[in-house]
């Protein structure tokens, strides 16, 4: 039998913040694709499940000079992920085939140590049992398993779509998948075409070029996590929001 070695890829995305207008289509498409359950009545923005969360930030100036920017933040698929080494039971690893950081809910103990480790708050805990209104379970995506309460979950670049693209390639006798077959749901759903997705290792891909462009940046780069989600903006004040050197938010929200 021949070796089943597959090629290595580093999937990445570049999000153009000058195009994003905060419509939330990415977050919605993500929830539909990945069987993320709707909120329980008592859930809120601190206990909710949104793999792709859109944050709004502003230039901090007064009306009418105030301008906002929307940061869609999902798992940043770090090259040096702070969440992998902390998991006590190997429920998190990095896929050598895709560079995607995994989270395997059925292995997860629910200790939430990975959540404290992630500086991007991209990991979410199932505080509640997943529940859809009666009958709506027939609209679930069979390619993604439904998570149980008490485990952590997060974005995996729509891994099921990668699996499907790989199976399609295999059926055609190929080992390499067609880039057009693997597009995460958020990328597909963006009405502004603000997200470019592809293989960073392929120098011809749009993502490799955009990631190297002058105004591309990553969040909290100084932490050394080397995220594979890039952002770009021609506005300097937007780029400054990537680092946490100055405190700008004065909002305080207390729960309990």
């Amino acid at each position, binding site marked *: 039998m021949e070796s089943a070695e597959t090629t290595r890829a580093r999937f990445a995305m570049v999000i153009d913040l000058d195009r994003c207008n905060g*419509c939330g289509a990415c977050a919605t498409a993500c929830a539909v694709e990945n069987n993320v359950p709707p909120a329980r009545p008592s859930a809120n*923005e601190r206990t909710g499940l949104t793999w792709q969360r859109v944050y709004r930030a502003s230039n901090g100036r007064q009306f009418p000079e105030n301008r906002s920017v929307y940061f869609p933040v999902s798992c940043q698929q770090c090259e040096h992920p702070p969440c992998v080494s902390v998991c006590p039971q190997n429920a998190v690893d990095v896929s050598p085939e895709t560079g995607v950081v995994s989270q395997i809910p059925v292995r997860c103990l629910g200790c939430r140590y990975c959540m404290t480790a992630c500086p991007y708050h991209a990991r979410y805990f199932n505080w509640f049992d997943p529940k859809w209104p009666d009958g709506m379970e027939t609209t679930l995506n069979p390619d993604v398993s439904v998570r149980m309460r008490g485990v952590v979950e997060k974005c995996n670049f729509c891994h099921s779509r990668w699996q499907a693209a790989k199976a399609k390639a295999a059926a055609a006798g190929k080992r390499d998948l067609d880039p057009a077959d693997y597009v995460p749901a958020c990328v597909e759903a963006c009405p502004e075409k603000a997200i470019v997705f592809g293989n960073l290792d392929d120098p011809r891909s749009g993502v490799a070029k955009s990631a190297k462009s002058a105004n591309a940046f990553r969040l909290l780069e100084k932490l050394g996590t080397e995220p594979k989600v890039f952002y770009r903006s021609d506005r300097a004040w937007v780029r400054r929001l990537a680092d946490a050197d100055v405190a700008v938010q004065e909002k305080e929200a207390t729960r309990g």
Partner: protein
Amino acid sequence: MKFNVTRRDVLRFAGGAAIGTALSPMPWNLTDDLAIWTQNWSWIPKPPKGERATRTTVCALCPAGCPVEARCIGGLPVALRAANDGAALCPLGMTGHHLPHHPNRLTGAVGITRGERRPAAVTTDMVVRETARAIRSARAGAGSVVVLDTRPGRSGSWAWRRLLAGIDSAVVAAAPGLEGASLASLDTMLDARSQSFGLDLRNARTILSFGAPVAEGWGQLDLAAARESVRLVQVEPMRSRTAESADRWLPARPGTEAAVALAIANVLLAEGLVDTTALSGTDEFDSYLSVIAGFSPDRAAAIAGLAPDEIFATARELASSGPSIVVAGEQPGGGPLGRPAETAIFGLNLLLGNVDREGGIVGRTPLPAPGDDAPLTPLARLDEIPDHSVALVIIDASAGDGVYPWSLVARKLSPKGSLVVALSPFLSGSAARANFAVPTPPYLETIHELPTSFAEPVASIALSAPLLPTRSGAVDPVAFMRSIARAAGLDLAGEWATTESLIRERVARIHRAGSGTVTSPADGSATLVAELSTSDELWDALLAGGRWSAAPSNTMPPRTMRITGGLGTALGELPTRATATPRPTGTLTLVPRATRDTSASAAVSPVLTKLYQESGLRGSTGTAVLNPRTAASLGFAAGRNVRLLTAAGAMRVALMLDEGVMPGVVEIVVAPERSALGEKTAPGARTVLDLLTPGNEQTWSAVDAQLLEG
């Protein structure tokens, strides 16, 4: 032998048993199986299994009618996306396949008593009898009959007009707060009530919008794509997504739009930027000029809180880079600006010569009616109907809903007795406020019609094909009308018995006329109708997601133009009133804010809690947003729960602070009410909209309010 069981025996037995158990697979398998049990809990929903296929339809959740590709498992849709390349669906459209399973879906007719937690089940026949009785008493003089249509222009809309034709006091009115409602003022000004016209936004070079969400898909203009060729000037108090992406943003105070429009007209005239010879003979032109003369840029700028230069610059831009289009209001959740303001704003179109011009306001042939040429009930605006005069309101929300304060309808009801009947798939929105609600099939369970949308320059139609079987209990609206006709003794002749047969008839008439083209959603290829041999072919092409469009005709028949639409002095008074009324200190202007997508439907997918409840992206209903300076002057901090007080009452809201909000303004988030998001609550619960009492102009885009402790 005596056998005494001693403590020591028990210990030995237990010891042996412990070792034996440890040496058997039982404890280890049990530990393993228990852990696996937690991975496979029976109460965790299991996704469906079955064959995979893709099917095409058209989204019927808002008037835009986007082509949709559905990924189906075992024939049932599990994911929706735009069927045409390069396009995308909005969050509402993407989750449309959840709606047939919405927890607030009506499964049978219900009677709703205010204050009762649960509606009572009734029979459809009973609702028919009650409706017929109300019609008979209306004919006997008890009051008038109003049908509120939430999606005008459908075959069903025509059927209502046909049904009520025999009743003198009956009118069909568009539900308040619908997109395109402001354009009715343009109808009046152009005396085009029986005529239909559209906005040629794609060919315009400058768009001046007073609050319309142009950059958020309003009017089907892909502004992102048209960035190079279209210049957008936005006049809006809120820093909306459109305002932020506009080329020029004039943050005028709420309620001062008319002053800004009149001042722009003032500059156009004063600087001789427009040629008014064609208008000089027009009805009321002189009074219009005198109103304009009262609004110098300096005065208007002071009223609106703008720099006068902004007004000068806007006027000059409009005049120099035509063709231009000026649109009024259309703010989702905020409703129309009111006729005087709309008249002032649309007047700019007449001054600038935007009518009958490519890239301006163009005439369009209307869609053929689905039936005979029998007389029809007149169309009216709800604000034209006298208060306390209506005996029966029928709300046809079978194709969608509007967002408006319920008091707009309530004030019309006759105190001597009235009945409100709603047709809706869901027990939320309008239906939750009726006396009776009759279930109709939702999107994806029946054929829905997407007739020409308000801004389109040519007539068009698309059909939303069902992907799911209709659930039992749902009543076809046209079949319901026929039952009413029978019970009330109204004449409703014709072959058609259901909505589908009515739409088929309309399609047959389009085919018979033989003009226009059908565009396929997949590849954008167009087929001439003339090439289709039977109307069934046209029907099939439409059911496969195609859209029929009429051939463009940019000429409008000659018409009378009435500049101020007979509004007389109201126009002059309006902007002054907005600022001159002395207000007690601490009074703020309450401005409702909604997003376009979710204001179109009575129910949204519970998954949209991701946007409304589980993230800060769109505030949940009951969130008030203030400028931090305004909050500081009132002594409030973020996250505080305060009482919001208006003339209509008070409500508790959570405060959010945002520097992007105009000082002195409270933005109130009009999110889908909790029942629309799928939570089981009492029908017709009060929402923030109930705080927005419409004034005499029946607008609710800006209302005086106060914030109080506690």
